[in-house]
Structures are given as C-alpha cells and as structure tokens.
C-alpha cells in the first residue's frame, strides 16, 4: 500500500439530525479528515442497501450512516427501520467475509457536532487501518 493512500468515505446523513450535526461541527470548526464526503438524505430509512454496495463497487473504502437517535426520528419511526435493515446487511457482509468495520451506523443529533467530528475521525482511522476496499470493489473501476 502506498503511504499516500487515503480512503474514500461516504457518509449518508439524515437531513434533520445528523446533517445538522455535521453543520454544527463545521460551525464549531471541529476538524475531521477531508476524505469524508457527506450525502444528504431525508431520513436514515431512505438509505437503500444498494447505495452502500454501489459506493463500494465504485471504490469507496468505508460507508457510514448517520441518523437521529432512536426515538428522535423526525418521521417518528424511520431510524428504527433503518436500524434493522443495516443490522441485517452488515451481518451479511460479515458473513461474506467483508472486513468488520467497513460499514457503520452512528446516531448523531443536531446538537452533537463534537460527536460527529469524533465519529468521523475514528471511522477514518478504522478504515485507514483496514486498508483499501478490495473485497467489494468492482475491478473495472480500478483504472
């Protein structure tokens, strides 16, 4: 592995809590690595497992979903569904031998700017240690 390699990380953030939490960490100038790119979705339950696999296929090294804390969902129940879906998906990825920790779910409220930054720092560290995503990539995208 090259020393200069930096992982590509996709963070899906729900519009109401986590995206606002990410904004707050910006407002507070809390640093986290630039490899994290955020995609705004209305609710964590909008995250289709296909989006995660698509990200890995196209070369992402880690995918994280952030949503409102359970019980605080703007749509009352969205994150509960997301939680089940992600649990099962992650378990399947684990079953297929994908490294533990490439995927993650974290509940971040709009007030938790610090938690957002800390989570991202930690996640980037984990993924950097895991190295490049080789098990879920599409070889065609490695040019």
């Amino acid at each position, binding site marked *: 592995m090259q020393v200069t390699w930096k992982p590509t990380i996709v963070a899906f953030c729900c519009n109401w809590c986590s995206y606002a939490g990410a904004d707050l960490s910006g407002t507070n100038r809390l640093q986290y690595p630039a490899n994290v790119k955020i995609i705004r979705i209305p609710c964590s339950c909008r995250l289709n*497992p*296909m989006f995660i696999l698509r990200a890995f296929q196209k070369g992402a090294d880690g995918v994280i979903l952030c949503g409102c804390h359970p019980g605080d969902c703007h749509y009352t129940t969205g994150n509960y*569904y997301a939680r*089940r879906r992600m649990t099962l998906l992650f378990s399947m990825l684990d*079953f297929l031998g*994908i490294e533990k920790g490439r995927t993650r779910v974290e509940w971040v409220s709009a007030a938790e700017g610090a938690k957002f930054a800390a989570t991202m720092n930690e996640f980037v560290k984990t993924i950097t240690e895991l190295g490049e995503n080789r098990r879920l990539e599409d070889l065609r995208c490695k040019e």
Partner: protein
Amino acid sequence: MQGVKEKALELLASGKAQRVLGWKTGEFFYDLTPGVFESAEEVEREFEYGVFAGANLSKYCIAESKKDGVTAVFLKPCDAYSFVQLLKEYKVKREKFYIVGVQCDGMCDMEKIRAAGISGATAVSEDGDTLKISTIYGEETMKKSDALLLKCKTCKSKKLVIFDELLGEQGEDCPESHRFDEVERLERLSPEERFSFWRGELSRCIRCNACRNVCPACTCETCVFDNHNLGTDNKAAASDFEENFFHIIRAFHVTSRCTDCGECSRVCPQHIPLHLLNRKFIKDTNELYGAYQAGADLESRPPLMDFRKDDCEPSVVYERGGAKG
C-alpha cells in the same frame, strides 16, 4: 404418493376445479415439468407425481390466479409456506385455488445421482430407503437419503400451513432440522476463510437468473437488476458484480419474505449454495428479532417491516461472539 393423480381427475370431474396445476411426465423418470391440465384426458396421459416432483408450484399460482375459475393446485409443505407468503403479499387470490396439500418425505435430485457417477439412467424404483436405478450400463443402487435435494435434507417443517384437502397426514415442524448448521459452520470461520469460501462459490455464477426467476418471493414486475431506468441493471456475469452486489441484494430483497423453500439452490446450474445466504438472513432475523417463519400465517408483520424500540444496534454484528477476526 398414491392418489395424487386420482385426486386431480376427481377434482376436474366434480367441477370443483376448472384446471389442475401439477407435474407433467417427462422423457425420463426424473424430468417432471410443472404444468397445467385442463382435461381428464390430459391428466390421464401426462400427470405424474413422485420423488422427482421437487419443483415448487406456488410461483405458477401467480399466473393461474389471473385466470377465470378455480385452479386446483398440489402443494407440498414447503410449497404451502410459499403460497401463504404470496397470499400475504396479494400475489394470489385464495378463492381462485383449491389447494390439495400433499405430504412429502423428501424429493430426489438427479444431479446428486449423476454426481455419484451413475450415468445413462433410464428407470428408478424405490426399495425402502434405497433407490434402484436402471441404466443402459446396468443396475445401480443408491441410498435415497444421499439422493435427496439439499433442501429436503434439512427439512424445516412437514406441516401444511394451508390446504382445502389433505393427502396423507398433517405433519409437524421439524425443530431438529439442523438447517442452520452450515451457516453456523461458516460463521465460525475467520473473515478471510469466509471470503475465500464465498468467492469460490459465487465466482462460478453465470448470471442465468434461474435462482431469481424460480424464487416464489421474487415477484417484482421488473427486477432492479433488469431495470435500465434505475441504473441498477447488469446483465453480465462480470467483474465481481455477482459476488458484490447481485447475490447480496437478491437475498436482502427476500429477507423476512423467504420461506426457505430451497428452490434457489435446487435450480442453480453451477451448484452454488445460494440458500445459505437466505438462511443467514433468516437466522439473524430469528436471533435478533425473535423467531419468524415467512409464510406461516397471514397476520404477522415481517421483521424487516417492523421494529422494536429496544432493537439491537447494527454494531451488534461486530460485537457478536463466535466469529473470529
């Protein structure tokens, strides 16, 4: 099983059903094809039931449900679960079917017989638990248990969950099926071992879509993998797409809807144990959200369309014991 053909004739004669969905005799003793019979004559000529009637007829009920009149259908226990699941998702109409439940002792797989080195088979007879197979090269024998379809070896239930009439005895769930043993064995491996196992298996995939098309839970009008407008289509068996995307999503999409009928593995021309992916989801669902059997009833909420406020967090996957690494 005695009486299946007679029942078909009787139902047509009595007018209880306008047609019968069953199995048609083939060129050999093992190549039964699901088929629709509209007259007694056809039944007399072509209807056949036996240990090679492994095909699950419930998916054909979707098409039959659109026809006028009543279709009589023969359902084995695992097929009946699929039927109820289809009913639950409004894919079939109950009043369109006269369901004859057929008890089943396990169905045989010609591929297993071939794998045992038996070729040129022309006839078979059952002698207790031994299969006597006549071939053009002479007589061969094989234990029936060795010739069973993969799904029948770990039969989950002999209970017919839906029927209008029963041929044979009502059966029970088989709690000792050990159907999760293989999943557990894989779970105990290291991620590297699991990865190489699945790479080995899934890389054989030729994307013929038989697993998807045979699946009674795959009832989409257009599959996401055929949907060009969505941008998720992919026809090719190319560059890890099957390993990294197709089979994961295929299994995910039937999660909490899959009745574990085992058709996916039965039809795979490359003998990939696809049912293990479905079973992994079933096992996880049972363990994390309480026991659930798709197709067991019409009322219960599928676990993926349900939640509890105190459900485990996704990180449980990484914290659970058992698996190394």
